[in-house]
């Protein structure tokens, strides 16, 4: 299977008073297509920094990242944005839904972003995604009218609606109780199997590791395993 995400010797340093701070030090990693990978590590280990670099939101100080075999560095801002719009889906730790859109509209929005025009199929896909996260009956609810777990599930539905190749989920379960966290992880697992999406999820919850096909562990900015 080909690797969808490849990281080669990635380092990321930030200027701090009196020198530089390395958030990531020479990380090598590769995630094959359709794999559900978990990026594990304690708080401050560099998970989100790596995630941001893979998600083209940030650039590494050293090393290179390849998405579908193409190096990100040197890509124009527009190309990166197009990549994020069409090829990637994002789920963030905090509630990241657009407050002015209801559940259905939030999911539909990612499809608009990906340039999928209005059609019956588009509506059917939205329904499918919402049913998959078990929130079809709450499709007309606004984010403020839903619990944190429900919002996160809508965020997942939104992230997969446009059939991205890669789903990046940064601590999606951090604010959820363990049962809800298990449900969300279950959804991810199912996605990678049924839709062939490559999923990279960060978490520090050891209870969720069993669901993963692959675990990348970070400690103090370095890959531990």
């Amino acid at each position: 299977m080909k690797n969808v995400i490849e990281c080669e010797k990635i380092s990321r340093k930030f200027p701090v008073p009196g020198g530089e701070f390395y958030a990531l030090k020479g990380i090598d990693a590769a995630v094959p297509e359709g794999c559900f990978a978990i990026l594990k590590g304690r708080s401050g280990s560099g998970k989100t920094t790596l995630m941001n670099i893979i998600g083209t939101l940030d650039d590494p100080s050293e090393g290179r990242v390849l998405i579908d075999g193409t190096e990100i560095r040197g890509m124009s801002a527009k190309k990166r944005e197009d990549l994020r719009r069409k090829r990637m889906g994002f789920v963030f730790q905090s509630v990241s839904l657009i407050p002015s859109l209801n559940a259905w509209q939030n999911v539909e929005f990612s499809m608009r972003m990906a340039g999928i025009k209005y059609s019956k199929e588009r509506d059917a896909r939205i329904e499918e995604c919402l049913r998959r996260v078990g929130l079809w009956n709450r499709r007309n609810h606004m984010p403020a009218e839903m619990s944190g777990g429900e919002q996160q599930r809508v965020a997942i539905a939104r992230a997969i609606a446009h059939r991205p190749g890669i789903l990046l989920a940064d601590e999606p379960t951090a604010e959820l109780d363990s049962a809800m966290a298990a449900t969300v992880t279950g959804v991810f697992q199912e996605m990678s199997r049924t839709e062939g999406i490559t999923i990279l999820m960060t978490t520090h919850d050891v209870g969720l590791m069993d669901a993963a096909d692959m675990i990348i562990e970070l400690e103090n900015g370095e890959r531990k395993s």
Partner: protein
Amino acid sequence: MFGITVLKLWHKKWMNLCLILGCTLLIATTVSFPMYQAAAYDRMLRDEFDHFYAKEGSWPTGAEMTTVSKKDKTGAAISKLETFQNGFAQTLGVTEKEKIRLYTHSRMDLHSEMNRPDAGTLSLRLGAMSDLPEHVKLLAGEIYAGDPSADGVIDIVVTQGCLTAQGLLVGETLRFDAMKDAQGNPIRLRVTGVIAPQSMTDIYWQTDPEELSDVLLMDMDLFSAMFTGENAGKYTLTCKYDMLFEYADLRAPQVAYLQAQTDYLTTTSSYRSVLKLFDYPEILKEYAQKRERIFATLMILQIPVLVMLAAFLFMISGQMYEMERNEISVIKSRGSSRAQIFRLYLYQCGILTIVGALLGIPLGRVFARVLGATSSFLQFDSSRLSEVSFTRECAFYAAGAMLVTLGSMTLPAIRHSRVSIVHLKAQKAIRKKTWWEKVYLDIILIGVSIYGYYSFHRDAQKLSEHVLSGKGLDPLLYVSSSVFILGCGLLFLRLQPLFVRLLLAISGKFLRPAIYVSLRESVRNSRKQQLIMLFLILTVSLGMYHANVASTIMANAEENARYLDGADVILREVWTEKVDEEGRSTGQFVEPDYAKYASMPGVDGYTRVSYDDKAAAVTSGGNSRQAVTLMGIHTREFGSETAVSRAFLPRPYRQYLNDLAVVSDGFLASMDFHTKLGFEVGDSVTVLNRYGGSTTGKIVAFFDYFPGYAPSVVEIGPDGSAFRSDRFLLVGHYASFVRKWGTLPYEVWVDRTEGADDAAFYDWIEEKNLRLTKFTDRDRDVEDAMTDPLLQGTGGVLSMGFVVTILLCAVGYLIYWVMSIRERELTFGVLRACGLHKRELFTMLLIEQLFSGGLSIAAGIGIGKGASKLFVPILQQAYAAANQAIPMQVVTNAAALDRLYVVLALVMTVSLLVLVLLLFRMNVSKALKLGEE
């Protein structure tokens, strides 16, 4: 607590700077009104007296006492009156200008000691006038000495009239046989000089010198020693006391005391029977009415501005609390009492208010000066900047403004201090209709204002009479327009989300992501945006409305003053009447040299106009007479020197003159000859001039307006009520009048060259030594009309209000934008992370801005135009002057509106720039991080 407060203030310095700006402007605006009013009242008071003095020629502020001290009475009465006179100004609390004492005995016979063939027995009065030598010039001889001469003869002076009438000679000695000095010898007098007033305008001459034609004037001190005090009982003495006080020093706040003291003197005091006041009580009464009118009008005009200022503070502090909601709810959840939270904000807002007051009061002074320098809407004439002072009233206003400021900033704290973090989250989820939407306040307000419109529209004419009688502007009238604007603004807020929803329903499925989200945001945030949108709508629509009100009333006042003057300059010289050999008037006059007018500088033309406002037309078959004004003109010259706007007449003005030109005995008659007296074109009319001459002519046309002609004037009756009376005017040929009656006094109507030098013209008048009985200068009269405190105050308040609100609006709108973007940083971060381009994000916010700000401005413009169309014609009635002659027209001040649009464009551009700046500074991963916190 204080430390925390200061720290909090510093932490949100930009927000607090905006709040300070709001406080400063609110306090400055509030304080500027009483400051301006005080200065305006002072000036108005002085103007009232000045006008009276210029028109009537008699000093208005003072009183006169005349009493007769009978023979055998003690001198106590006289000394009491003298004491009263000395303390008169002090009693009234004013500055003394002049006090004049005139003592005269009754006429008594006297003989000349000179052996003259024509010397008969004379009957004259002996008298004295205080400070006489300082106010007279000697025509012959010298002024009297203070003491009798060695031979016991007393020096006296006489007026020219007395000298001639009595046939006295300078140096002549006269003897009163019936009047004895202390030694019992007859009093002997010597005529030492002949006097005349130094100046006829000297206010010392309260007693006409003509009245002194039988008085021999001696030194006052000597007179007092001889005939007052213990010697008072010997002869009957008439004592006249004039007490004049300075009006230029009179300040508005002194008026009430002056009026009260005057009332006391004339109704209660023991001097009431002998005291005769000059004209000042009437002038003060008129002034009080005007003042009341100005006060009411300016107050009403200020209210919307002040309400908007308070709303601004409320809005901004609301934003502040909105930003601090999390903080407040966390403090609350950690056990702080509501009182503690309230105190924290009270201190914080207290500091802001005090800083606001420290800056606002001096700024208010500047505002007040600018108010006084307003020449038109948003136009200020720096040469008119007047001095203003901080009065006790200003302190009250400042305190009031500070309280409102503090209240509007701290009151939201009470509401927010109730909310714990749990309630806060719950609250965020709830979306409710606002109270005004539920009660249909918008519809109610529009209904009320339309009702107001119809009822005022019906009684438009009564309205101006009501105002002219001093009752001030009916608050309801002004409120109607404000209510209309508010109602329409709220209706727009109700309709705007529906409109966006409709747009979404129609095209939502196909919209690009950025536009789609912005429209959704617009619907979603419609309630949150209501206040800023309403603020924008009100600022724009009130700005437009006020611009139209101000320009309409100012343009009308100017146009009216121009029209009423008739010509650029009108001069009328003193004409002396010819007398026959026996001194009887002949009705013939000596015509001043007319040829000299050819040398007037800066003049395009001039013409003779005979003007008789005491003529009469014979009506009803000769049975009754109608008082008319009769003008005699030279049609061709008059036509080229004067003009009447085409808007006022059904056909061009010069056609009327042409009609007259072809009929040598023709008359142009004012329309009331037709409507009130039943005359028709072609009818004969007989007219009598003031000297009794009559002529008959044919009416050739009726006109509604003619240069200088007011069809009706509003007069104020003795009970203070206003009524309208018609004025009849007949215009005939000057030449035919001359043929009939000979040369009669005429006026010279002058058409001056545009931009001609005033000084040269006035120098010419001076140089030619013209003695004028009438002089009007159109430019001066227009200037006078434009500086009317009511008009100027209105222009000033509206301009100032507009500047302040637009400033607040700009600041408020920017704050709203910045806050709104900050608040949504997480959403923007998510959108950017999901691949939304910066350009798209900008488009999204731009559209959002267009749908909130842009639509609000468009609505504001529409509402402003609507309100102007409906209410300006009614409101201007309230500003109609008593001499309003021409029909009033709504004037749209394009320049002011352009200024308004420029300011709005600037506000929108600046907020867009801020938007771009914020977006480019935004870091996606940082924004996402922010969201996590």
